[in-house]
C-alpha cells in the first residue's frame, strides 16, 4: 500500500491490497491458508444474529490473539506470589506479613492462580475458541483437498514470481510437459483452459491443524492427570519398609476421581542411604551423591528385587513412581523406665531445621514407661541433633557440616501425660507438653545432656570434623546415656541411621501428554517449515508479424513468507525449458512497456511495480 507510483490505482486492487498475499488475485490467491476471515462488522439480527456474531468473534484470529496474550499475562502473578500448591508455609507467612494485601490476594485467588476461576476462564475460552477454529478450518481444508488447485488468474504478471519466454513448441505439448513435470515434483496439477494449475505443500495446513489439535490433546491429558492422580509421601528409616496402602502414607492427596480401592500392591524397604558432600573448597557442604538402596516387591508373589533410587532416577513400579525427595538422620535410642525395663528401642526420625548442615529436631515418646513403683509415668524427650558438632567452644548447637562426622544429640526430658491416649491424631515430631512436667536438676535448672553415639564411643573413633587435629570425644561429655533424676529411667544414644523420604505418585495421562507434545512438535515443524505454494503455467499461441509462436508464462504464489519461491520457479522453468526451447525475443521496441501476452491491457498503467520500473 505504501508503494507510491504517482499513477492512479486500479479500483479493484486498491481495496484488496490491504488484505492477504493473494488478495488481489481472486480465487487464485484465496484459500492458501485456512485462517479465518476477519469480520468486525456488527450484527443486525436479533438474538440469533448476536449469538452468531459472538461465536464468530470468539473464533476469530483477533480474539485468539487476545486470549493468548491474556493467558501469558495471567500466568505471571503465580510466579511472583507464593502458591499454596508449591509452598503453603510461605503463603501463610505472606498472609501474616501483609494483612490487607493478603486478604485481597486471597479473594482474587492469587495464592492458587493456576486453579483460579479467572485463569481457568481464560484458558477454557481459548480452547473453546480453538475448537471453534479448528472444526471449520478442517472442513475447509478437506474441501480444498477434494477440489482442484484454482485456475490461473487473468494476469500472471501480478504474481510475486513470474517468468515468460517464447518457444516454437505447440502449446498443447508445452502444457502436457508442464503437467508431467509438475506432477513428478509432487505438485497436484491439472489442466484448466490454456493453463496448468498446480499446488504443493498441503502438509503445512495439515501440520497446523495437527498442532492445534495436539494442544487440545495436551489439555485433556493435563486434566486427566490432575483428576485421577494420587500422590503421597513416606519417610522411611534404614531397615524399615513401606507397602502401598492408604494407612502407610504419612500424607496423601488425590484427584477427585481417584479410587483408593484400586491401589496397586507393591512395597519396598530402605536398605541403606548414601550421601556424600563436597569436603573442601568454596562449595564445601554441597551435596554430591544421594542414593537410596532399596529392595522392592510387586504383586502377590512378593519376590524381592534390589535397586537404588536417585534424585533423577525414580523407581517405576506397577503404574506408580517412587521418587527420592529428601533425607535426614534418625538417632537410635533406648529408653529404660524407673523399673529398669527397656520401654523403647528404635530409630527416631529427626527433621532438619537447617537444610544445609542438618541441624535437626525430633522427639521420643514413651507412653509405656512406669515409675520404680509401677505407677504410670509417661516419658517424652525433646532432642536436638547435629551431625557435625562444632566443639564445646563453638558456643552453639548448630551443625557445621551435613555428614555425621561428629554427631551429638542434646536431649531434655519430660514426664506426665503425653496425651496420646486421647484418640486425637498427634504430631509425631512434637511433644504436647500441656500435661507434662520437665525434669529439673536440684538447682531448678532444666535437666539436659549432650550425648554421643554409643557405637562410636565404643570404637573410640577420633572425629575430625573438618578441623586439623580433629576433635575427640573429650570435647563433650563422652557419654551416650542420660540418667533421669531420681532413678526415673535413662535414655541412651545408641547410634545413627539415615532416613529418606519418598514421594509415591500415580499420574495417568502422562503417555497421552507426551503423545500430544510430540504431535504438537511435528505439526509445528510442518506448519512452519513447509511452504504452501501454487504454480501456473500458461501456453498460448500468438501471431507475430504473421508468424505463429507460443508464449509460455509461469508464475508462482506462496504465502507471504515464501522467500524461496522465485528460486523454485526458476528451477521449474529450467525443467520445462527442454520441452519448450527458448525462441528469439521479438524486437523489444514494440512491447517495451507492456506485457506482450495481454495487448488488451495496454490501457491499464496502474500496476504498481511496472509504474516503479518506468
Amino acid at each position, binding site marked *: 500500500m505504501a508503494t507510491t507510483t504517482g499513477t492512479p490505482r486500479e479500483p479493484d486492487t486498491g481495496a484488496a491490497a490491504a488484505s492477504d498475499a493473494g488478495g488481489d488475485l481472486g480465487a487464485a490467491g484465496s484459500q492458501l491458508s485456512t485462517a479465518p476471515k476477519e469480520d468486525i462488522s456488527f450484527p443486525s439480527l436479533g438474538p440469533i444474529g448476536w449469538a452468531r456474531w459472538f461465536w464468530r468473534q470468539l473464533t476469530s484470529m483477533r480474539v485468539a490473539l487476545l486470549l493468548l496474550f491474556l493467558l501469558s499475562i495471567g500466568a505471571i502473578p503465580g*510466579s511472583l506470589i507464593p502458591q499454596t500448591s508449591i509452598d503453603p508455609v510461605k503463603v501463610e507467612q505472606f498472609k501474616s506479613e501483609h494483612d490487607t494485601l493478603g486478604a485481597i490476594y486471597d479473594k482474587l485467588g492469587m495464592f492458587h492462580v493456576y486453579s483460579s476461576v479467572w485463569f481457568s476462564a481464560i484458558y477454557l475460552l481459548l480452547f473453546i475458541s480453538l475448537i471453534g477454529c479448528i472444526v471449520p478450518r478442517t472442513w475447509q481444508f478437506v474441501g480444498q483437498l477434494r477440489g482442484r488447485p484454482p485456475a490461473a488468474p487473468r494476469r500472471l504478471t501480478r504474481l510475486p514470481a513470474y517468468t515468460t519466454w517464447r518457444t516454437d513448441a505447440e502449446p498443447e505439448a508445452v502444457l502436457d510437459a508442464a503437467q508431467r513435470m509438475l506432477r513428478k515434483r509432487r505438485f497436484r496439477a491439472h489442466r484448466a483452459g490454456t493453463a496448468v494449475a498446480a499446488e504443493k505443500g498441503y502438509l503445512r495446513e495439515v501440520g497446523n491443524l495437527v498442532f492445534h489439535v495436539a494442544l487440545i490433546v495436551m489439555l485433556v491429558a493435563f486434566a486427566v492427570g490432575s483428576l485421577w492422580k494420587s500422590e503421597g509421601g513416606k519417610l522411611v528409616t534404614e531397615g524399615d519398609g513401606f507397602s502401598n496402602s492408604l494407612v502407610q502414607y504419612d500424607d496423601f492427596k488425590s484427584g477427585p476421581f481417584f479410587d483408593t480401592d484400586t491401589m496397586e500392591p507393591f512395597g519396598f524397604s530402605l536398605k541403606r542411604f548414601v550421601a556424600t558432600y563436597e569436603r573442601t573448597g568454596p562449595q564445601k557442604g554441597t551435596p554430591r551423591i544421594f542414593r537410596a538402596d532399596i529392595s522392592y516387591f510387586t504383586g502377590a508373589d512378593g519376590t524381592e528385587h534390589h535397586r537404588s533410587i536417585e534424585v533423577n532416577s525414580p523407581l517405576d513400579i506397577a503404574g506408580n513412581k517412587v521418587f527420592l525427595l529428601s533425607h535426614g538422620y534418625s538417632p537410635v535410642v533406648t529408653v529404660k523406665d524407673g523399673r529398669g525395663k527397656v520401654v523403647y528401642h528404635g530409630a527416631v526420625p529427626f527433621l532438619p531445621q537447617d537444610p544445609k548442615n542438618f541441624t535437626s529436631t525430633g522427639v521420643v515418646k514413651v507412653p509405656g514407661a512406669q515409675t520404680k513403683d509401677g505407677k504410670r509415668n509417661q516419658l517424652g524427650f525433646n532432642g536436638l541433633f547435629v551431625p557435625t558438632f562444632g566443639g564445646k567452644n563453638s558456643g552453639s548447637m548448630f551443625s557445621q557440616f551435613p555428614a555425621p562426622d561428629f554427631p551429638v544429640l542434646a536431649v531434655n526430658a519430660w514426664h506426665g501425660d503425653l496425651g496420646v491416649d486421647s484418640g486425637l491424631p498427634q504430631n509425631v515430631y512434637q511433644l504436647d507438653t500441656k500435661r507434662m512436667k520437665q525434669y529439673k536438676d536440684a538447682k531448678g535448672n532444666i535437666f539436659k545432656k549432650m550425648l554421643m553415639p554409643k557405637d562410636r564411643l565404643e570404637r573410640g573413633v577420633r572425629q575430625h570434623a573438618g578441623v586439623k587435629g580433629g576433635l575427640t570425644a573429650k570435647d563433650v561429655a563422652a557419654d551416650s546415656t542420660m540418667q533421669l533424676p531420681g532413678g526415673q529411667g535413662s535414655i541412651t544414644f545408641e547410634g545413627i541411621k539415615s532416613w529418606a523420604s519418598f*514421594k509415591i505418585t500415580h499420574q495417568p495421562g502422562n503417555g497421552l501428554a507426551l503423545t500430544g507434545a510430540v504431535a504438537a512438535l511435528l505439526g509445528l515443524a510442518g506448519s512452519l517449515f513447509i511452504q504452501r505454494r501454487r504454480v501456473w503455467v500458461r501456453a498460448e499461441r500468438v501471431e507475430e508479424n504473421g508468424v505463429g509462436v507460443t508464449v509460455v508464462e509461469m508464475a508462482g504464489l506462496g504465502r507471504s513468507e515464501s522467500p524461496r519461491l522465485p528460486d523454485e520457479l526458476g528451477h521449474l522453468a529450467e525443467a520445462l525449458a527442454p520441452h519448450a526451447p527458448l525462441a528469439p525475443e521479438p524486437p*523489444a521496441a514494440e512491447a517495451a512497456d507492456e506485457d506482450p501476452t495481454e495487448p488488451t491491457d495496454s490501457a491499464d498503467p496502474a500496476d504498481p511495480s511496472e509504474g516503479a520500473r518506468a
Partner: protein
Amino acid sequence: MTLAAAANETLAHQSNVLVYSAMAVYTLAFLAHMAEWVFGSRSKVGRTAAALTGEATAPAAVTVQKAQQGGGTAVLERPKIVTRSVSGSRDVPDGPGAHGGTEKGDLYGRIAISLTVLAWALHVGGVITRALSVQRAPWGNMYEFSTTFAAVAVSFYLLLLVLKKNVRWIGLPLVTTVLLDLGLAISVLYTASDQLVPALHSYWLWIHVSCAIISGAALYLGAVATLLFLFRDRYEDKLTDPDGPQPGAFAVSVLERLPSAASLDKFAYRINAIVFPLWTFTIIAGAIWAEAAWGRYWGWDPKEVWAFITWVGYACYLHARATVGWKGRKAAVLGLIAFACYLFNYYGVNIFVTGLHSYAGV
C-alpha cells in the same frame, strides 16, 4: 586424585584467562565496528529516500525481465524470473551496510569481523576448557550459562556470515551485548568451577539446557533485528510521507545504512519461526526431566511458568503475523515482549525468585 584436582584447577584458570582475552579482543572488534560506522557516515548517498520517492534507479526488488531494450532480437539463455513484493509492502532496497559503501569503512568492518572471529575462538576455548576442568557440560551455573550463551550467539552470527547472508549490520549490537554479558558473567555471576548438585546429574541436562541456550542465542539475534525493524520502519514511514515530520540527520545516517524494514522483518521472522519449535522442544524436554526428577512433568514452578509465558509470547507473535491489522509493528512489539520474557526467565527468575531450579550460584 590430588594431581587430577590440580590439573583441573589449571584448566579452570586457563579458561578464565581465555575468557578475559576474548573480552579484550571483543573490545577491539567493538572499536573497529565503531570506526566502520563513523567512516560509513561520510558517504552521502540517500539511497532510501531516492528509492521511496521513485525518482532514481529501479527498486532492487524488481528485476527487469526484458532482456534488452535496444531493438533487434535477443536469445535468452534461460527464463528470467521477475519478483514482485507482495502488495501492501514497500519496495525498498536494503541499505549498503555500516560502511556506507566507503572503502575505509569497509576495511574497518572487515577488521572488526576478523577480530570477532579471533575473540570467538578464544571465547569458545574458554568455554571448552571450563567444561574440561569440571568434566561435564559447562552449564551448571549462571556464569557458565552466560559465557556459553554469548559464544553460541556469536557462532550463529559467524555462521550466517559464512553462508554469505547479509548480516554484517548485526555486528556492532552483537559485540556490544556480548561484552556486557561477559562483563556481567565475570563480575557478578562468577562461580568457581565445580561439580554439579545431584539434581543436575542427568543426560536431560545436555538436551534441555543446550536447546535452551541455542534457542535463546538465536532468539536474541531475532530480537535485535526486530528492534532495528521498528526504527527502520518508522524511518521509512517518515520518508514516504514528505508532509509529515522528517527523520533527523543522525537517524538518517544510521538507519539508511541498515537493511530495509521488510528485510529486517523477514530476518527476524525466519529466526523466530525456526527457533519456536526448538523452544517448544526445550520445554517438552524440561517437562520430561521434571517428571523423572520430581514426579510431575508440570508443576508451575517459576522457571516453568516463565518458559511457558515466553512460549505463549512467541505464539502471540506468530499469530499476530497471520492476523490482519497486527502484522508489522504490532507483531514486532509482541516479539520483543516475548524475548524480554526469555531474558526475565534467565536473570529475573534465577536471581529474584526462588524455585526448584536453584542453580544460579549467586
